[in-house]
């Protein structure tokens, strides 16, 4: 059984279909790449899955349970966590406290949460920044902090929204290794990314969205050789 199943999901904003008839299933342990031009509905899909938007129509099944209409905090407690395209550090809290807030989703004890958070920061090689204010971090560190924080909520499914956006090649490579490392720990991931090279490297399957509709889905190889995808990305003149 798939860990996450999306059945004919629609999301309208007024007359605009931001997501239209999305069907997809994410198997346990895999990395699903989610790509598409700007405004194709990738982040909207994340927002629907994690409970920020109620879907207009359709079903979202997580671990065999229908989750549409659940609030984001309930979705998180069920074992699904997301990061944000625009990073959202809790600026006036320290890095450690940021991760502790995530860990507190699973415990009432500050001591346990602190230990879990430190462990998470060590896995990220960020323990030297534990006492810095989150607002003082560089963009690369902020992205890593986002991941550390959601990992602390002990998710089974991780939705990463452009964690490599705005990073330099060295930092991007670090994030790629991190994503592969998370996969090795048995977590399932859906990754929105614009860097095609990166997405081809890490994904087991790729889904392409265009104008809110699902354009293609398959292995990375199948997707890049799909003429529709090439048209959507580069314009029709390139298909010859």
């Amino acid at each position: 059984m798939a860990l996450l199943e999306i059945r004919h999901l629609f999301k309208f904003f007024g007359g605009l279909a931001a997501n239209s008839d999305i069907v997809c299933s994410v198997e346990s342990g895999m990395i699903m790449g989610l790509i598409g031009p700007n405004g194709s509905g990738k982040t909207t899909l994340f927002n629907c899955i994690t409970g920020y938007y109620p879907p207009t129509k359709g079903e979202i099944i997580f671990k065999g349970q229908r989750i549409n209409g659940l609030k984001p905090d309930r979705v998180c407690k069920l074992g699904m966590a997301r990061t944000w395209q625009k990073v959202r550090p809790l600026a006036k809290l320290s890095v450690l406290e940021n991760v502790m807030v995530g860990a507190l989703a699973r415990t009432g004890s500050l001591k346990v949460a602190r230990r879990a958070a430190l462990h998470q920061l060590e896995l990220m090689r960020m323990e030297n920044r534990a006492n810095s204010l989150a607002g003082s971090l560089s963009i690369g560190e902020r992205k890593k902090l986002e991941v550390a924080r959601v990992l602390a909520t002990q998710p089974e499914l991780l939705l990463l929204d452009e964690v490599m956006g705005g990073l330099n090649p060295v930092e991007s490579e670090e994030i790629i290794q991190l994503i592969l490392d998370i996969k090795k720990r048995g977590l399932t991931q859906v990754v929105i990314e614009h860097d095609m090279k990166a997405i081809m490297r890490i994904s087991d399957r790729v889904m392409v969205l265009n104008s809110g509709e699902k354009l293609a889905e398959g292995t990375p190889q199948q997707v890049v050789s799909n003429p529709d995808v090439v048209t959507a990305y580069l314009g029709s003149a390139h298909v010859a």
Partner: protein
Amino acid sequence: MRGARQVKTFGRIHLTASGFAALPLLIVAAVVAALFVFPWLVASPYLLHLMILLFLSVAMGESWNVIGGYCGQYSVGHAAYFGVGAYAALMLLQYKHIAPWWGVWVAIAAALIISLLIGTICFRLRGPYFVLASIAVAEIIRLVVLNWKQLTNGAEGILLVDIPPLMLGGRLVTDWLSKTPFYYLGLILALATLLVNYLVQHSKLGYYLQAIREDQDAAHSLGINLSFYKNVALAISALLTALSGVFYGLYIGFIDPASVLGVDLSVQMVLICIIGGIGTNFGPVVGALVLVPLSEALRANLLSKFLFSIGVVQETSRVGGFLKENLAHAHVLIYGILVVVVILFMPDGVLGFGKKLIARRARPLSATPTPLVGGLDGST
């Protein structure tokens, strides 16, 4: 390997935390001890009165700090809880002859019910819309109290006749005739609100409230039930505010809608925190220490007296007469200007400004430049 390193990191964090905590704890203990013996050393009723006002302001500021400081929900309607608390206790005392130490429970219950109502309505809104809604609901309550004359005596307010003597096991504890019992009551109230703030800050609740303050959407995605935690914070805040209201009513002995339910009271609670340092344990204490003497000095026209005494202006001259006549009336204006100055130049309050000054002075001693990029840990 990893285990050993983890313990070391732990030890370091623990050490710095306890190292910083020891000194302030000693200072706090000394100050509290001094405050407890203060009435034995000082007989002046005016000084005692000032101290009681100070305690009241600390309690009000600390109460607001729970929802406004930690949770970041800037309620400008806290007079509602203050007034409802004061009215509940004083009406029971005046009309039903129920002693305030019983009436205070009714006051707390009333404030909690109202906080739940206000929370359910207002927490649907965010940012400035929440602020406006909180003002509106408090104004509605003020107008109800003002116009429900049979119950509340309307604009005439309630003039307390007297408080029954407090007996404990057949012995008289206090007859409430001097300022001393109010001094101790106020001191305990201020310390209790301070303690609640400390406990909130050092609990899961405190972490969650601060997460909500910093970024609601991020907090929501991390498993935090926003409306639940906001309502819990508001309930704690409302409870403490109601206690302050009961204390005010008993001490002053007169309440009316303008004095205990007005929007200026709500603003004052916010200002104590903003001036002192919002979302910190001792910020409201510092705020009260600045604002109470300041407004008292302005009210008592100390400024013009000071100008006369150093001889800048002759008291008998025309300018002197003008100042003597008008500076006292302008005290609200001067107070306002000073508040604006503090907010403009000390965005983190007096406490935050002081900390920054200390940090700036300490920096040359331990000159370790912070790395520009974080990736110096040899990763990748």
